[in-house]
């Protein structure tokens, strides 16, 4: 009972704010696109569901069984009835499905599947393992798998603000999923294949990285941090890595099953 009381107290203190929780603050260039699709769907399905509920309430009151009221025999299979119900189906399809499909295809083409090209891009290799995130930067030569690759300590990822970031991801052991709530992106890391994704931060700060795919008993605390730096801070951070970052061969303990070397030649087209 004591516990129950405490629960009730805890709950009532937050009750006013619970009904419309917002997603975490969007700090990515294209996250608004996802929020827009969700908001459009929210609006339209609220209208449709509202109509259905109102109709049901009206029917419940108007057509409730009572003395003197009887049902109208109606099989609803005349051409008119069938045409109306098909029209309803098409109305729903064209007012929701076709619109969100159009929005989604447009956003995929313009943003999520439209990978940035050019020289001013940050490339990072990510290798999750039970239960941590490993990151690898190409270093000065811009080529992965060379002596000057930079590997920060686990779970620490830094990117510069306002610059496109492409990640390639492949896990060491089981499936993980790289999830950045504030950036509205998520990509699975499946053993045996390299996946890729891109995003761009619009403000500086420290954000959480979560694993979204069940990966074992400590899945719940497989957490990393993504720090978005200003250009200058980011370069300083890279500099500090070069000076004191982990060398490949001191990376990981002997008791832990971690590969001494990891990283792969960057795949230009996936």
């Amino acid at each position, binding site marked *: 009972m004591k516990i129950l009381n405490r629960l009730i107290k805890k709950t009532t203190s937050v009750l006013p704010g619970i009904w419309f929780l917002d997603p975490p603050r969007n700090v990515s260039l294209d996250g608004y696109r996802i929020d827009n699709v969700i908001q459009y*769907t929210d609006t339209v*399905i609220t209208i449709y569901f509202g109509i259905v509920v109102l109709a049901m309430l009206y*029917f419940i009151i108007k057509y409730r069984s009572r003395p003197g009221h009887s049902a109208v025999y*109606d099989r609803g299979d005349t051409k008119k009835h069938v045409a109306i119900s098909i029209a309803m189906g098409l*109305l729903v399809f064209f007012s929701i499905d076709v619109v969100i499909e159009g929005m989604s295809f447009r956003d995929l083409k313009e943003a999520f599947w439209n990978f940035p090209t050019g020289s001013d891009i940050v490339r990072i290799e990510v290798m999750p393992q039970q239960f941590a995130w490993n990151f690898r930067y190409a270093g000065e030569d811009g080529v992965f798998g060379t002596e000057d690759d930079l590997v920060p300590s686990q779970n620490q990822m830094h990117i510069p603000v306002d610059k496109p970031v492409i990640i390639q991801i492949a896990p060491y052991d089981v499936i993980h999923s790289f*999830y950045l709530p504030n950036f509205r992106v998520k990509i699975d890391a499946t053993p045996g294949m390299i996946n*890729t994704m891109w995003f761009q931060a619009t403000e500086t700060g420290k954000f959480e990285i979560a694993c979204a795919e069940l990966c074992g008993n400590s899945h719940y605390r497989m957490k990393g941090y993504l720090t978005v730096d200003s250009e200058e801070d980011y370069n300083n951070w890279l500099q500090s890595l070069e000076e004191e970052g982990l060398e490949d061969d001191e990376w990981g303990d002997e008791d832990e099953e971690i590969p001494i070397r990891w990283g792969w030649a960057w795949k230009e087209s996936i």
Partner: protein
Amino acid sequence: MSDNQEQSFWSKYIFSTDHKVIGKQFLWLGIFFLLFGGFQAMLIRWSLSNTGEPLPWWLLGDFLYQSDGGIISPDTYNQLFTMHGTIMIFWAITPILIGAFGNFCIPLQIGAPDMVFPKLNMISFWTMFLASVVLLVSYLLPEGTAAGGWTSYPPLSTPVGGIPGQGQVFWTLSLTLAGTSTLMGAINYITTIVRLRAPGMEYFKMPLTVWGLFLTSILNALFVPIIAAGLIILLLDNVAGTQFLIAGGKATITGGDPLLYQHVFWIFGHPEVYILILPAWGVVSDLLSVFARKPAFGYKATAICMCAITTLSAVVWGHHMYTTGMSPLLGKTFMFLTLLISIPSSIFFFNWLGTLWRGSLKFETPMLFAMSVMWVFGLGGLTGLYNATITSDIYLHDTYFVVGHFHYTMAASVLFGGFAAIYFWFPKLFGKQMNSAFGKVHFWFSFIPLNLVFFNMMVMGYAGHHRRIYDPTEYEFLAPVLGLNDFMTISAYILGAAQCVFIANFVYSLLKGKVAEKNPWKAATLEWTLDAPIPHGNFASVPTVYNGPHEYSHPDLKDRDWISQSEPMSS
């Protein structure tokens, strides 16, 4: 058939070949596992709100997990949600709707003496029983039962995944057995419906319940073998040292592919959603008509829409895998096909509303549950749109939004459809009437808390809460949802407590309930022409069918507002 012979207890109640007895056996099994899986949900909720605190006495804190001091550890938590999902889907919903009501309703509603293959039917139940034993034994293993999620994605569910013990092996074995049982049932149902319909019982005169069960069985017969193949290679990876599904740094043999399992799982897994929900749709369509006292609106269109959804369900599995790095062309195709489902769904949903329109609605307990299915399926279906759309799914995939969505479609719709069926057919199953006041209490105390739990799951998922998280306080971005989490937990306890009302009502009505009339709901389908208890062999003489399944309030009827399917309309 040994209809008239004196039967021993064993052949009458245990190894019976009578479809009605087998149906009841499935019902007992399903209700047992419904409570078992539901109790696990309560433990999950406790752990989410009171992470790391010992269980209270009313959640059996003095008995459970004593080696951990009565605390649910992360390992235990993973086992709990794995088995909650597995049990609710394969051991609660499947036996109740498909096993129990499939068995009970199909022969009675089509005017058949029994299933085509009565012995296969019996073997189907006992295979399921064996599967249940294997499943329950897995809880007694020293390291506990499976903990890889109900989807059991490899490599986590293989020896390289790092989950200790043999729970996964037992899980895979028991699911393979359950699938075998389902397959035997499906073959039986399809053959019975095709071969044993009474004279005059055309396909478009079958009750929609039978339509739902028919389509479900077709999907089962087509897709259960596929998941069986997946489970067998998973089993081999677990016990025989093969690496079909293992790749990456832990693989010692090249050529394995974890994605293969995901495809195989969802080729079955998406139709599975419809396998579960089609019987519920059928039951709801029939019940709305009975309690609105008018024919099912657009009966033929509803049946055709159900066929269309059945067909489409086979080609949309990829929408579970948008974040796996799927080829854009494939992703777009799956998205388009998935969204197509909203056309037939809207049409038959509109037909449900049409059935209520100008009816004479009687709010008996089965009707309340049937109408609540419209509510929960409406919400569940509409929220599927977010998950079918690639861009919104990138954000919402693997969050509580998905959990809330499938709890609405699978758990709530199917469970309420099942409750509607239990309240509706109880008089024919047991010859007693269930108490209607307690039924209504059960309804309201299920309907409201259920929405408070499942809707808020979606709210939480929208706020970013990812799935299968033992301790939500780990993340700063989840701080805003913690209060909601506790609110949902209390709602879930109320939902759980309401099921005690149901069980009490069920047991009381069974033992001391009012003896039911022959046709208490004044329904037109064939099972209501029989006196309870229905003898082995059902109909004394094969009925001839004249009318459709929903002839209510026909203008030619004088002294009553219904006419049985086997009664010629006199005029």
